[in-house]
């Protein structure tokens, strides 16, 4: 009897430690158990989805992508008709999301930087106005702001025949915002070659002159020379290619509507206004924090060395501030892109809106959702990759 017990307990030990007190064994068991729980849940969920799919005749495949969509979309950058496929409709939505993200990021950066500079201004009034703007806009939900812009502003503009004309060729009406569109002519391609040459020349000149300045210690005005090259070559090209490569296409009031020109739909304009004004406050705080993080001693030391005000900012403050600004700035860009999914509330045809319409039309909730989520996840992934590359680079510069 006694020998039996001993053999059992020796069986349950490893290197003299009972199994139930062995950390390695316990950790292994914990992992297996937690994995089993998660997998169990997954099997439960997937089983339910499959059962529901069978009972309700839902299909989980992606074959619908090539089927004819059959619905109209209010806004598109590539040709699309209801006869086109669901896949093409999704692409239209994706391009619209990218469009609003790029334009939004561009405008929000400008607005945010201006606001940050206003917040740092020694002028009390300017400073106050900027901080009131930030405190008001940050504390109101973005969706409320979007509703305001769309339903209270752009939807209540006068009909198109009584358009409000802003200074310059900008017309606001219920049909959106009409303005001048630059249009490429036949010589545009040749002119683009001049523009590219200008950029290359500017880069080469800058680096050559900068190196000479480093070597000889004389001011070579590298920035000025590069800027001249950047402007002069495209300018020369403009006259050399014959007829102007770009013409302006003015919106012309017809009988019932404008023809020509660039049109922003009310949905796009409202979404853009909301996103830019909201994200601008966050960018302003990021930029302000970055500039303030550069210690006052750096300004003083740079001035003591004899650098001018512009040089202090360009050569000493900005390189240090940018290092702090860029990572949170990129995540604000990502936030703007993710927030553009709120477009569904005001009917802008972004990727999420189109996905929702496809679900209604084709009834493929699971596959469509996977596609929509994949779009946003790849945006996040791209952002974190960029951020890692940037962080690596500034670390190399640092040491």
């Amino acid at each position, binding site marked *: 009897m006694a020998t039996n017990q001993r053999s059992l307990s020796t069986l349950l030990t490893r290197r003299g430690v009972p199994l139930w007190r062995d950390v390695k064994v316990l*950790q292994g068991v*914990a*992992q*297996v158990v*937690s*994995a089993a729980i*998660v997998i169990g849940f997954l099997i439960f*969920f997937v089983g*339910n*989805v499959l*059962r*529901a*799919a069978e*009972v309700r005749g*839902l299909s989980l495949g992606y074959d619908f992508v090539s089927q004819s969509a059959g619905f109209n979309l209010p806004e598109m950058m590539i040709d699309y008709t209801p006869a086109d496929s669901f896949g093409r409709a999704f692409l239209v939505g994706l391009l619209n999301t990218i469009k609003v993200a790029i334009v939004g990021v561009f405008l929000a950066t400008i607005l945010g930087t201006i606001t940050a500079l206003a917040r740092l*201004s*020694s*002028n*009390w*009034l*300017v400073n106050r*106005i900027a901080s009131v703007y930030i*405190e*008001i806009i940050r*504390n*109101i*939900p*973005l*969706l*409320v*702001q979007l*509703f*305001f812009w769309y*339903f*209270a*502003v752009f*939807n*209540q503009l006068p009909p198109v025949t009584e358009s409000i004309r802003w200074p310059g060729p900008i017309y606001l009406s219920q049909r959106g915002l009409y303005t001048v569109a630059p249009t490429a002519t036949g010589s545009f391609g040749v002119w683009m070659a001049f523009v590219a040459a200008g950029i290359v020349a500017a880069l080469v000149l800058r680096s050559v002159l900068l190196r000479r300045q480093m070597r000889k210690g004389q001011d070579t005005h590298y920035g000025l020379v590069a800027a001249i090259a950047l402007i002069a070559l495209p300018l020369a090209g403009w006259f050399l290619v014959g007829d102007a490569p770009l013409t302006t296409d003015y919106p012309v009031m017809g009988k019932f509507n404008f023809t020509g020109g660039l049109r922003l739909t009310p949905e796009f304009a409202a979404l853009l206004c909301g996103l830019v004004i909201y994200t601008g406050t966050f960018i302003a705080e990021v930029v302000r924090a970055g500039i303030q993080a550069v210690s006052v001693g750096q300004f003083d030391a740079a001035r003591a060395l004899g650098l001018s005000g512009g040089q202090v900012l360009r050569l000493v403050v900005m390189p240090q501030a940018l290092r702090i600004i860029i990572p949170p700035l990129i995540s604000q860009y990502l936030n703007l892109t*993710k*927030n553009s*999914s*709120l477009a*569904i*509330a005001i009917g802008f045809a972004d990727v*999420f809106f189109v996905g*929702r319409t496809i*679900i209604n039309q084709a009834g493929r*909730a*699971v596959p469509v*959702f996977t596609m*929509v*989520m994949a779009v*946003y*996840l790849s*945006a*996040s*992934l791209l952002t974190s990759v960029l951020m890692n590359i940037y962080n690596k680079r500034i670390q190399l510069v640092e040491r």
Partner: protein
Amino acid sequence: MEATTETVVKPPTFFGPVDWLRKSLFSTWFNTLLTFLSLWLLYVVLRGALTWAFTTADWAPVTNSLKLFAVGQYPLDQMWRLGVIISMICFLMGVSWRLWGGTVRTFALAMAVALGVMALMPVRMDLTLRLWFLVNPALMALGYLTGRSPAVKSQWVMLGWLLSFVATIVLLSGFKGSALLPRVATNLWGGLTLTFLLALVGIVASFPIGVLLALGRRSSLPVVKAMCVLFIELVRGVPLVTILFMASIILPLFLPDNLRIDRVLRAMTGMTLFAAAYMAENIRGGLQAIPRGQEEAAKAVGLNGFQTMALIVMPQALRAVIPAIVGQFIALFMDTTLAVIVGLVELLAIGKTVLQSRPEWLLLDTEVYLFIAAVFWVFTYSMSYASRQLEVALGVGER
């Protein structure tokens, strides 16, 4: 020649208003220009806004639907339940004020003042409702007096808050077939009440999940860690709208047919999962801030792994992340507006309903959305103000 008496002129310690003006508004020609530009801008904007608000604007949809904005379609004869909930919170607020002071005091005072203002509001209101508004500050005072008793301990008050949360939900929903507390279906919940409820449930329910995820992400077990990282990054990578949609459209597919959960609960599930991922990252930040020595010392004293975490590391980590959690609550409070997209009638959706309730109100979007924005702003701004105070009181930023 007598010794020169060196007079040391003290720099003036007081600047007159003229000095202040010159220094902060007119220091350079550029600043002067900016000042005049801002003054002109302020004048145009304020004059336009004020004339509109007091002459053109028609606030009838707001003043006639205050009940809708506050509680939605909640049955009138059951409104006393909401009254009880608010009175309960006022009492607990009073006790906490006595016990903890500081930020709680600011909050309690603000609440008492707000209730007093509401009692005196010049809109149509029952006398009982006005009286009830006035009773609440008295209840708060009673709570304060109760808090002076040495028998009242901090732990009990915390437990009281937790119980009041449970009581709130029980009171709001009631029981099926009960005479005193008949069931109020969740589709009747609405307005600001639902907004608060969604945010509160989201933050409270996400807390334990967030703690587990944070611990899992720091775990040395690769399987557990991988699953937690996957969940957190997946959820953080997509916008909240997609998660809410997923919860309202796909979640029913994931569950067996006999398990039907209603719309509000589905939205709450989505919000909770979303909040949990962000909560996990906040808590992980707190855990990382705790020096390793704490853990080693706890081990040396003979505490086991669980005790070390629960008694030594976690309490310190949580204390460090309280401001971050408050910040997250504010963000979630604003994010509840997205529930309108999946068909809940929270504050923003009530705005839509009110606008469509009478034909003559159809175009009064500006008034209604401005009112909603103002309501959100008052709450979020006061909460973020309190959270900044809390941060100072806890001294979190100073370590």
